[in-house]
């Protein structure tokens, strides 16, 4: 038997696609119910634990601050409304949910993270189980959910208030409805799929790619021909539903903020590439591990070979991967969290690969042949436990800020660890600086954190004066020297993350700090043991993470401030 001939989830022989989805739900047995009852809660508990431990140890990163700030602005928070425009690049469904949460518990970074982690992070694990169960049966479903529950990448991104966890959740939900398509004679799956797709699009507009996935699947698999009568009517209803749910995004732009949409579009399409083509593979390797990647590749290979059989489950998964991963691979801007939408598919692929390998081994090794089914199950179980242990410990290491798995946080744009101390900086600014005080930073990231936690305005040197090259949400610093002299800027803040990304602007900022700064009034250092130190007299071996310089307006003073940071210190 060849590896790719194995049909996961069933012991049946190969079937042509006309018979329906491969891995059609097997008859439920008592044993499988018990297994599910044991495994699913355990996996959910594991997923919850990994996503909430030390959840609030480090404050928001820049994107989290922006989305949460938008949420607060939506519900009328006066302070946040001054700093965060609701009219930025993306739709506002997640922000609306966060706003509802803030109405109940107040504006809280912990509450926001809990909402995302538990609803969308853990929810994605559950949905992946359900999808894989429908496509491939219980064993693959358990393995896929187990992988996703402990995968460092998924854990790390689920713990952040980003759009991608919710976006990924709704994509899985939509595809689950599609997977129900052949069993659902009423056609209600179309409405469910459209609803979920609309919610995904109302979270992040790139979800329109689901149309490509679903349309391709329906056409290639022939599912369209097997629709009940009234399929056009249901399609029309689905499209109307989709449009209704997605409508707020374009309509609010057109009628409430005309021009902002075109500004963002212009900026999105003219942004220069920030990573090369191997970036996502590096991310998967670093935050998934070799075993996970190898199994996923094996699963993809198995599915590709099985395509000649037009196995519909494989087709759906592969289309999901090809369309979304392909798009992000082509798109010039590559951010760490973009893989969130495809990682569940990769988890399913890895589960398929693991299951196929186990079955092949059970069928190939003479000793196992006698009881190949039992041996296959045992091999899958052992391998899964090992994988869960390895990935789980890696996840714990990552969420606790360990450097074991990550060579350089900045290299992969993780952003969370790099703003350690940012929340404390914001609180310090709120409590110790004049309400009208304005800060100057290298880039806008630390400024967003300052706005959220510190209620203070910030300007960034790196914001370009060319509208094609800047995020329209930010104001360019036309003349830093003049603004410092005339006290439009009252503090200078240096942060390690931005300095590491841009040596040029780091140098410029430090030049202004030496010229107009009088003293470092707030500092965050990272000690040799990885912990943080707050104060201007750090212990030996501590490296600066955030430094705030008090500036003096007017003509530069004779006294030049001595800085713990030299221009060349950050390479």
């Amino acid at each position, binding site marked *: 038997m060849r590896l790719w001939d194995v049909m996961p989830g069933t012991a049946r022989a190969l079937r042509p696609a006309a018979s329906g989805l491969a891995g059609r739900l097997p008859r439920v047995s008592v044993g499988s119910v018990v297994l599910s009852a044991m495994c699913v809660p355990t996996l959910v508990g594991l997923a919850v634990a990994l996503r909430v431990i030390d959840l609030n140890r480090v404050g928001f990163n820049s994107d989290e601050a922006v989305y949460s700030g938008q949420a607060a*602005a*939506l*519900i*009328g928070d006066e302070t946040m*409304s*001054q*700093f*965060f*425009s*609701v*009219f930025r690049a993306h739709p*506002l*469904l997640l922000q*609306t949910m966060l*706003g509802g949460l803030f109405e109940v518990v107040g504006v809280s970074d912990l509450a926001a993270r809990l909402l995302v982690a538990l609803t969308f992070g853990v929810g994605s694990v559950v949905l992946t189980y359900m999808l894989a169960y429908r496509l491939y049966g219980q064993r693959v479903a358990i393995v896929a959910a187990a992988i996703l529950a402990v995968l460092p990448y998924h854990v790390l991104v689920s713990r952040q208030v980003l759009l991608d966890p919710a976006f990924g959740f709704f994509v899985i939900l939509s595809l689950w409805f599609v997977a129900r398509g052949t069993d659902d004679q009423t056609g*209600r799956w179309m*409405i*469910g799929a459209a*609803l979920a797709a*609309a*919610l995904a699009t*109302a979270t992040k507009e790139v979800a329109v790619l689901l149309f490509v996935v679903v349309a391709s699947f329906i056409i290639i698999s022939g599912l369209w021909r097997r629709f009940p009568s009234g399929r056009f009517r249901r399609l029309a209803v689905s499209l109307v*539903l989709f449009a*209704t*749910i997605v409508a*707020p995004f374009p*309509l*609010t732009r057109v009628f*409430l903020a005309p021009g902002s949409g075109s500004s963002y579009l212009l900026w999105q399409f003219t942004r220069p590439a920030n990573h090369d083509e191997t970036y996502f593979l590096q991310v998967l390797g670093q935050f998934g591990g070799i075993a996970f990647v190898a199994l996923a590749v094996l699963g993809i290979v198995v599915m590709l070979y099985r395509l000649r059989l037009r196995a519909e489950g494989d087709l759906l998964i592969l289309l999901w991967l090809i369309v979304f991963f392909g798009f992000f691979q082509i798109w010039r801007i590559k951010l760490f969290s973009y893989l969130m939408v495809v990682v569940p598919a990769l988890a399913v692929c890895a589960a398929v690969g693991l299951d196929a390998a186990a079955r092949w081994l059970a069928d190939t090794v003479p000793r196992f042949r006698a009881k190949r089914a039992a041996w296959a199950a045992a091999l899958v179980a052992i391998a899964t436990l090992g994988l869960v242990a390895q990935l789980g410990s890696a996840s714990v290491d990552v969420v606790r800020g360990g450097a074991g798995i990550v060579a350089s946080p900045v290299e992969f744009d993780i952003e969370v660890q790099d703003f350690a101390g940012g929340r404390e900086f914001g609180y310090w600014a709120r409590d*110790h*600086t*004049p*309400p*009208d*005080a*304005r800060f100057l930073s290298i880039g806008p990231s630390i400024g967003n954190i300052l706005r959220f936690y510190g209620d203070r*305005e910030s*300007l960034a040197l790196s914001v370009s004066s060319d509208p094609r090259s800047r995020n*329209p*949400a*930010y*104001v360019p610093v036309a003349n830093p020297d*003049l*603004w410092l*002299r*005339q*006290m*439009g800027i*009252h503090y200078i803040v240096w942060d390690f993350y931005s300095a590491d990304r841009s040596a040029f602007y780091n140098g410029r900022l430090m030049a202004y700090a030496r010229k107009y700064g*009088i*003293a470092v*009034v707030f500092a965050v250092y990272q000690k040799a043991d990885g912990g943080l130190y707050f104060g201007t007299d750090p212990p030996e071996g501590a490296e600066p993470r955030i430094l705030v310089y*008090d500036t*003096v*307006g*007017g*003509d530069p*003073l*004779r*006294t030049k401030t001595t800085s713990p940071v030299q221009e060349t210190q950050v390479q």
Partner: protein
Amino acid sequence: MGRRGWFMTHVRLLPLTLVLCGLALARPGSPPPAMADAASTSDLSQRIDHIIVVVEENHTFDSYFGTYPGANGWSRADSYPRDPTTGTPMKPVPYSESIRDWVVASAKEGKELLSNARPAAEEAYNGGRMDGFVGAQLRRGNDGQITMVYYSKEDARGLWSVADRSVLFDNYFSSALGDSLPNMLHLLAGTSNGIEVGTKKTLAQIADGVPTVFDQLQAAGISWKYYIGGLESLDRERIAGGDYLRSDEPTPSQMYWAPILSMKRFWEDPQLNAGLATQDQFFLDAAEGRLPAVSFVLPSPTDHPLSIPTAPQQRLLSLVNAMGKSPQWGRSAMFIVWDEWGGFYDHVPPPQVDEMGLGFRVPALLVSPWAKRGYISHDQYDHTSVLNFIAQRFNLPPLSPREAASNSFETAFQFDAPPRAAPAFGLASIPDAPVGTPSQNRLTLMAYLEIFAVVAAVIGFLVWAPHIANRKERPDDRQDARQG
């Protein structure tokens, strides 16, 4: 008349007697006592630990705040000084670019722009008629128009922004009709000891004498510093040797503006000398929370002589911001005063309390978390009032009768209200980041809430529709059953 009648007669006369005695004792021109407010000495000691006095140069109240809304500005004058050559009254003229260009050119030639010494002041004062300003400058070869220059809101926007959020005194006078030295001596010592004008000779006179507030503070163990802009450019040896007072040596302006630099003991006594600091040190001390109990600041650049207003205002605002950003802000009070008239016009005749003055009105501001916000004080003050305030706070005896009789500043404070947040002044116009208005945000929220309504409706329909369909089928089932 019986014993009782005699007694009652004298009792009735007692109040009249007391009033007459009081009138006899009251000196002419003495300032009326300010009405006491809730503020008191105990409030001061509980709230104010750091007093900062910033001394600017050479402008009258009308020149900077003559058009400030609510203040006693030049528009309230009954008449204006006349140009003696034409006889026509000259109204104040706004500062302009042409004036600025003229100022720059004159400064390059080393030309004096305005005369501000006592003789010119007395001519301008002209016995209280206040009509000699133009003539006083013309007779000294200066441009008479310059004396009538005032700064508009735009040109003085830094100062006005401070006044908007602080206390502005529109009845604060310099202490002497004359230039910097006699006025600074009143500010530091309560008296000028008869010195009417600043010259090398008069600087030499104060080298050995004149007890100052710093001597009092030092003796009382209260910390103090005098932050002097340009201090680092002075040669200590040459000061100690009296070189700067020789006729062939140019005398640094700081010695007139900060007269203690001419007092030997402040160079020879290490403890007193430790109180002299550079302007840079003020910013450092403020940032690190090490300001002393009493600070005097001579800024650099200052707005003397008539200069382009931007640079001096930037420096002044930077000093105010430094205090606002300091950890000591919550227990501080900063007075910003101008030492003397500088040759500029003011329409309010100064009361003459003694042979020295008062001098013309000068701008004065109070910045403090405890100061009333946007308040214009019309009470009468002069430089000795600042000494009086320091003395009240730190229980020091008055340095002079003038100081003892002066008003202090309690009415400018409001200790029964929560302390104000520190300001962050600036002259730059920074564009705001684009954000939505409250109504835009509200409408956007409502638009997105529609999503939840649609989702709920669809889910409800999908869940209940089959049940509704089943119920509709039941009558047919019953019909079939009957037929069966």
